[in-house]
């Protein structure tokens, strides 16, 4: 099946945070409004950003950045959520298969079988997965954007677009065939360049084998806080591609060797006994 994706156009985004609200509403990730009755303290963090970070109940979050472009302040908005990587480090390290690739390409998640190990949290090059964790017992469950495929709340299986895309008033978010969205994104980048945005680019076409959330940007990805050339960490590779197979080989050879030893040693012990018995009689 053709791969699906989300295209986010930072130049169209008004940072209304409708996507944030729609995501919470659809996925039942309620948040308390900070009031005294609710027991939640309001805080002024000197920014329009709210909540301050992704969390088990905040799977998408708008970021606000102020940059100094030759003396003129620019106010940049960008979307922070799971990028649904093709070479997904989280899928690589997840021991239970709770994280897996959906047939449409993005990274779906079966929360029921999550072990709470938190390996995905440390492996993700975009620092996306979150969990509430009891530091003594270790009990935890991870959460992240599921591309609206959470069992029971699966919009994709219904043929609908994700909730964030559905709600986006300026159509900064689009959902569709990945190939079509790449073509669409490239067209917009070209028109941005033609209008004088020399650094405009499409982020996510090639990164980590191709992301299923791509960005149309009018400036370098680093300006938007995105990692330039994200990679699966060396530790992930050393652990999954080296030490795992070594474990299989060492374990296998040990069991094989012991089995062999048992057969040979028992045979020679028996023949010794026979010799002794023969000598005695």
């Amino acid at each position, binding site marked *: 099946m053709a791969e699906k994706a989300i295209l986010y156009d930072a130049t169209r985004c008004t940072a209304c945070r409708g996507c944030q609200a729609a995501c919470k509403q659809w996925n039942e990730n309620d948040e308390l409004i900070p009031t005294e009755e609710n027991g939640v303290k309001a805080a002024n963090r000197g920014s329009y950003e709210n909540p301050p970070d992704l969390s088990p109940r905040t799977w998408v979050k708008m970021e606000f950045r102020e940059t100094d472009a030759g003396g003129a302040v620019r106010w940049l908005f960008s979307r922070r959520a799971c990028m649904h990587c093709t070479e997904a480090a989280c899928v690589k390290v997840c*021991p239970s298969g709770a994280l897996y690739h959906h047939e449409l390409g993005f990274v779906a998640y079966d929360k029921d079988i999550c072990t709470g190990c938190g390996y995905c949290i440390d492996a993700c090059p975009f620092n996306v997965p979150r969990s509430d964790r009891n530091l003594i017992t270790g009990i935890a469950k991870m959460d992240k954007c599921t591309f609206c495929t959470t069992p029971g709340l699966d919009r994709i299986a219904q043929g609908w677009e994700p909730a964030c895309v559905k709600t986006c008033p300026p159509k900064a978010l689009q959902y569709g065939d990945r190939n079509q969205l790449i073509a669409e994104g490239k067209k917009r980048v070209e028109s941005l360049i033609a209008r004088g945005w020399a650094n405009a680019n499409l982020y996510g076409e090639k990164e980590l084998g191709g992301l299923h959330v791509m960005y149309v940007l009018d400036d370098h990805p680093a300006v938007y806080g995105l990692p330039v050339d994200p990679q699966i960490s060396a530790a992930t590779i050393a652990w999954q591609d080296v030490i795992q197979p070594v474990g299989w080989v060492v374990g296998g050879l040990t069991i094989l060797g012991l089995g062999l030893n048992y057969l040979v040693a028992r045979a020679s012990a028996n023949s010794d006994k026979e010799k002794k018995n023969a000598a005695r009689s």
Partner: protein
Amino acid sequence: MPQEVEKYRKPTRILHWVHMVSFCLLFLTGLVLFIPGLGIIAQDSWTRVIHRIAAAIFIIAPLIYIPLNLKATAKGIKEAFSWGIEDIGWLKAAPRYYFLGDESDMPPQGAMNTGQKLWWLIVLVSSVVFTITGLIMWFAKTTASPAVLQWMVFLHDIAFIGASSMLLLHIYLGVIHPTMTEAWKAIYKGTVSVGYAKKHHAKWYEEVTRRKEVKS
């Protein structure tokens, strides 16, 4: 009744079994995370809770044993690090001995033979590695950097592969191997027969008989 010599004192035997049981629990609850196909067993964190309980026992047991048995501890640690020419002889003779039961080339062994010493050394080193890396993954999960935490899993796994394969060997030799008839008794009841002691740990037997009378 054949004459018996004491091989392991009671506190040592208790420590051995407490450590053995907690190690096996740690092994099994670790294995389900290590083998991807088994990860589904670990859902809802319950194996990871057992891993932590067993880890606490694994760490605390020797911490209780050591101050109460300072002399035995010092002797044991010294033994793990004293290697000599006989050990090379043992390594050379081991294959013929363990496969064919041929002991003609086997040099006389102390309380621990070379193989046991090697295992004991692995236990010491891997326990330290397990404890340090495990405690970091446990308590610094939300504070240490992701890279550090990932390398801790890596080191934990190296200790796991080394110690667990040697554990299989250890259990096999103690319980299953046809010629190790009294190793099991030594750590279960604490004594071995004089005959077994002379045959398997001649140097050690000489020492104990020189030091004190054999109890019968």
